[in-house]
């Protein structure tokens, strides 16, 4: 109808056709004489020509004319034709609008899903926040801190294992997959947490460890006694057990060392375990076991869980014929081979059929993914695998597997330099299947914290790297404030001490126990630096790691360049890494320079990009004092651990230039139209 309005404004008024209404119009404000009479609308009286005049006076149109007068004139061509034109213009406009809608839908690229749209935040629940003053973190504590997590612009919360389990292997020896361990709260607490997470627009994923259970799991207890269907739920084999000495069926070793076979007094057979003896492996060649695992997946999905991190996936199947594995050092005496690293594990990991199991899990999760906006995420943990084997977890273009395997290349870097960071990035980007989505982690519960591994000077640069690389950034709790490992001399726990250093309580403020708990003790001591490295203090410091993290996270959320754009990895040297982010339709380009070297460095960017301007504006810096200022591209000076996001406009984007084509990557091509504020894919 906008066209109608415009058309009408341009219509020339015809003076001939109109004159002022001479009819008498009754005044409707006259008070009613009879209070009982009905209120009636005032009608406009029509002028009636005197009977003696009809043959003399020509009737002319006037405002408010009745149909008898109107129809004498409205049928004329000069009124009928515009009327028809306006009508059909409206009809055509409707079809054009519908056509435009359909066209836009067709050319729109696939949206980023929730697991691609923003960072993930990994929480070790025992160390995040204690709400019941027992010195252990719990689910209610996580719920109390959701506002903090939201303030980091986090989209997904990842909670590591909280299942009911004895205290073995950090809760990866699960006693009941459908129960919350009492130390973390109740199932009601979990359901309330899920509701609260979704209420804030966040998503929740949890660990899932299908390979094994605890030896206290009811399944295992029934299997020991050969009860019904549980008889073959685990991998049992005959073995010799005499005089307290067990002779295993073969030379397979546990990840933690020594034989992976354990004699069971009840059943008089040996069972297989690739981790601790308290963690017997399930027999995934038994279809009933597969169904049980799917049932557990459905259980948590129906609780509202948005996805899983599948752990220890490569261990799911083992060779049927129990052949010995080959020694790394063939001259070593077999009896002295006790460490996991002393064997090649060709018969206990990544067996034929293992990926089919993962795909089957994926299909189960797809049953819960049909509802719009409710896609269920699958990530797979991959450790100590070759690049080729890691990438297989993405699945193929015609069959779906994990959404991504977790990328620990940066998290396991011990030596930091421009070269090693570059290598970690290219290892993933060049080998990832086309169209798949990358992710990046700089730490986790199974590695030493970043600060303690490479030094606190690099925290900000690594967070900047995390948020400017393409894909999903994944942050382990505490990395946003630069928490480090704790030092421990003795512990009550029977855990491997080295594995505990990165699991210390979250440092919220500088009150006792860093604000983690009001109890007299904590399950692990807090780091001694919590008076300065804590959330409250860093909130108030403009130059803190937390403030930079929030700025980076906000930039990532706002800039299409970072979420959907091309990634062009330009150069590396002993100190620095240089790359750009760009998107067709946006003139702006982000040029990221990061110094991971031992000392300061000076970069000549004009050698790298010939048509770069001589001055570039700093959009964001690890040193907030320089934000908004300019740098000379002849000599960009970077201190140790310094990083810059430089912003400039570019006529020809790098991924269109022949010289850089091979160095540019993108998962899903898209272009942006600023006029329509639209992403489109036909470009």
């Amino acid at each position, binding site marked *: 109808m906008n066209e109608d309005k415009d058309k009408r404004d341009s219509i020339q008024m015809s*003076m001939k056709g109109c004159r002022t209404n001479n009819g008498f119009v009754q005044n*409707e404000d006259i008070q009613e004489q009879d209070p009982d009479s009905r209120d009636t609308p005032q009608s*406009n009286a029509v002028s009636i020509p005197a009977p003696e005049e009809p043959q003399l006076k020509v009737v002319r149109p006037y405002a408010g004319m009745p149909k008898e007068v109107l129809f004498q004139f409205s049928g004329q061509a000069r009124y009928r034709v515009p009327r028809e034109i306006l009508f059909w213009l409206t009809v055509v406009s*409707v079809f054009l609008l519908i056509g435009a809608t359909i066209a836009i*839908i067709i050319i729109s690229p696939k949206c980023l899903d929730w697991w691609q749209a923003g960072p993930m935040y990994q929480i070790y629940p025992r160390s995040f926040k204690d709400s019941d003053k027992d010195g252990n973190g719990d689910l209610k504590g996580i719920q109390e801190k959701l506002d903090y997590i939201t303030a980091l612009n986090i989209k997904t919360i990842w909670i590591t294992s909280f299942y009911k389990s004895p205290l073995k292997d950090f809760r990866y020896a699960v006693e009941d997959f459908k129960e919350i361990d009492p130390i973390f709260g109740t199932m009601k607490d979990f359901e309330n947490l899920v509701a609260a997470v979704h209420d804030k627009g966040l998503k929740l994923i949890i660990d899932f460890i299908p390979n094994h259970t605890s030896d206290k799991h009811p399944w295992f207890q029934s299997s020991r006694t050969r009860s019904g269907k549980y008889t073959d739920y685990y991998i049992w084999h005959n073995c010799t057990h005499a005089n307290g000495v067990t002779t295993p069926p073969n030379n397979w070793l546990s990840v933690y060392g020594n034989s992976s076979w354990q004699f069971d007094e009840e059943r008089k057979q040996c069972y297989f375990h690739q981790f601790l003896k308290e963690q017997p492996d399930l027999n995934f060649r038994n279809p009933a076991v597969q169904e049980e695992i799917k049932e557990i997946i459905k259980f948590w999905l129906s609780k509202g869980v948005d996805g899983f991190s599948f752990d220890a996936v490569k261990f799911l199947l083992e060779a049927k014929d129990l052949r010995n594995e080959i020694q790394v050092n063939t001259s070593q005496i077999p009896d002295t081979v006790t460490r996991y690293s002393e064997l090649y594990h060709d018969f206990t990991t990544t067996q034929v059929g293992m990926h089919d199991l993962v795909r089957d899990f994926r299909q189960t999760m797809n049953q819960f993914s049909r509802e719009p906006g409710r896609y269920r995420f699958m990530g797979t943990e991959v450790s100590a695998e070759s690049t080729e084997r890691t990438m297989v977890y993405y699945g193929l273009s015609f069959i779906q597997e994990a959404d991504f395997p977790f990328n620990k290349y940066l998290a396991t870097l011990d030596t930091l330099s421009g070269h090693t960071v570059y290598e970690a990035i290219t290892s993933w980007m060049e080998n990832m299947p086309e169209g798949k989505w990358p992710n990046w982690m700089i730490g986790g519960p199974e590695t030493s914290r970043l600060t303690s591994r490479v030094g606190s000077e690099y925290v900000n640069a690594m967070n900047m790297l995390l948020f400017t690389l393409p894909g999903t950034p994944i942050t382990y709790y505490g990395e946003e404030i630069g928490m480090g490992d704790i030092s421990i001399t003795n512990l009550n726990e029977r855990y491997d001490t080295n594995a505990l250093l990165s699991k210390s309580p979250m440092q919220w403020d500088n009150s006792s126990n860093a604000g983690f708990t009001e109890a007299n003790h904590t399950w692990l001591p807090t780091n001694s630096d919590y008076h300065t490295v804590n959330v409250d203090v860093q909130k108030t410091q403009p130059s803190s790691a937390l403030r930079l993290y929030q700025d980076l996270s906000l930039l990532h959320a706002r800039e299409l360049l970072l979420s959907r754009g091309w990634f062009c990895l330009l150069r590396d040297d002993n100190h620095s890494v240089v790359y750009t982010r760009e998107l067709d339709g946006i003139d702006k380009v982000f040029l990221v320079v990061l110094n991971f070297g031992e000392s300061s460095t000076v970069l000549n960017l004009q050698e790298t990009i010939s048509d770069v301007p001589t001055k570039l504006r700093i959009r964001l810096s690890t040193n907030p004092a320089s934000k908004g200022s300019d740098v000379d591209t002849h000599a960009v000076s970077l201190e140790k651990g310094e990083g810059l996001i430089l912003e400039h406009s570019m006529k020809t984007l790098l991924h269109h230039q022949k010289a850089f084509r091979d160095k540019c990557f993108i998962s899903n091509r898209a272009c942006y139209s600023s006029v329509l504020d639209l992403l489109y894919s036909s470009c």
Partner: protein
Amino acid sequence: MAMDIEKKIYLKRQLGYFWGTNFLIINIIGAGIFVSPKGVLQYSSMNVGVSLCVWVFCAVLSMTSTLCAAEIGITFPYTVAHYYFLKRCFGPFVAFLRLWTSLFTGPGVLASQALLLAEYGIQPFYPSCSAPAVPKKCLALAMLWIVGILNSRGVKELSWLQTVSMVLKMGILSFISLSGLFLLVTGRKENVRRLQNAFDAEFPEVSRLIEAIFQGYFAFSGGGSFTYVAGELKEPSKTIPRCIFTALPLVTVVYLLANLSYLTVLSPQELLSSDAVALTWTDRVIPQLTWSVPFAISASLFSNLVTSVFETSRTSYIASRNGQLPLLCSTLNVHSSPFIAVLLDVSMGSIAIVLTNLIELINYLFFVFSIWTVLSVIGILKLRYQEPNLHRPYKVFSPFLFITAAISLSMVLIPLIKSPKMQYIYVFLFFLGGLLFYVPLIHFKLKLIWFQKLTCYLQLLFNICIPDVSDEHVAEEES
């Protein structure tokens, strides 16, 4: 031309019981029942039993306020009866302010409904994120213009569309309801257990309970809409009560069964996690149909858009007939449809769609509607006292008047207490603007010569004329 001259052009009494019932059902069932269960359950502290009781209570409240509107529509059987009523009770200025409010909220409603319709229609193609604004606005404009064209063709030609839409709305909800009953009867353990333990959750506190009632009450809103068509209904004193006592119980039963079905299939937590509960429900029960639900909701909203244009255009038409809007708005086309009024509303709605910030401003005015409801109740009581002998074929039960007034007063006062002051300064300025229009143009009847000429030309261009029969005659014929 001879046939055209013979055919009388006026708003005719040609709508019967069936049409009226459809009209009411369409007005009441909007998008609310597909999303409101979440709000009601949330403010009932996830107490299933309490939330079902809230729905029953909302139905009763809705019935009381609808019956109050019934007395107005039957005593004054004119199109846009509530406008006549306010004019009769409180004078032309108050009636004008009511009109002034409608002139802005009407297009706001059209724009909101059109955008919502477009969003549901497009969203299935964007499963992972919000649909971009441009295609939503394009589709919303197209739908609004289609509805404008349809409304220009007259009431009779909308009837088939109304019927189809009503069947579609009731069809969706009946399907949900009956499927839920089936699942309940076949007795899967977890389904039955949920309802057996309906009252187990904690009881909500009073303030949250009130909030829950508001959430549910809005899903029932629209019951008073037949005052817009009282002048076009056959035998309004019989038709209106019959329509009310058919439509409202029917909607109540279907709403309750739908909620029962939602809660049979989904746990309270699942229901709270869902943004569109019908969607989640369908995914759970018949996954193959999940993608059809947004389209069904979209098609359902189309009929709401049709009736909204119908209602707002009649408001403009009648106000013009009473001299409070330009003469141009009191014209009808050859289909006896208030073409200019439709054109005006659709144009303003289109502007609101393009400039979506306007919708947010217009939304501030919605709480004002409760003031009009309070005034209506006061007016009914005033007339009973001042004109006890007025012909009243139907009289609403007196306590219902006070219940309705209490609800509406709380809807005025509670936001007033909670909300920031800036909003009410805005509302005050809005009414002041109305006064600035009223004094020169209506009270003193300033005539603008150029506008007279424009009126004349537009009459010829669009072939629209003053109606042949005055509304007074139509009313007299009926009684």
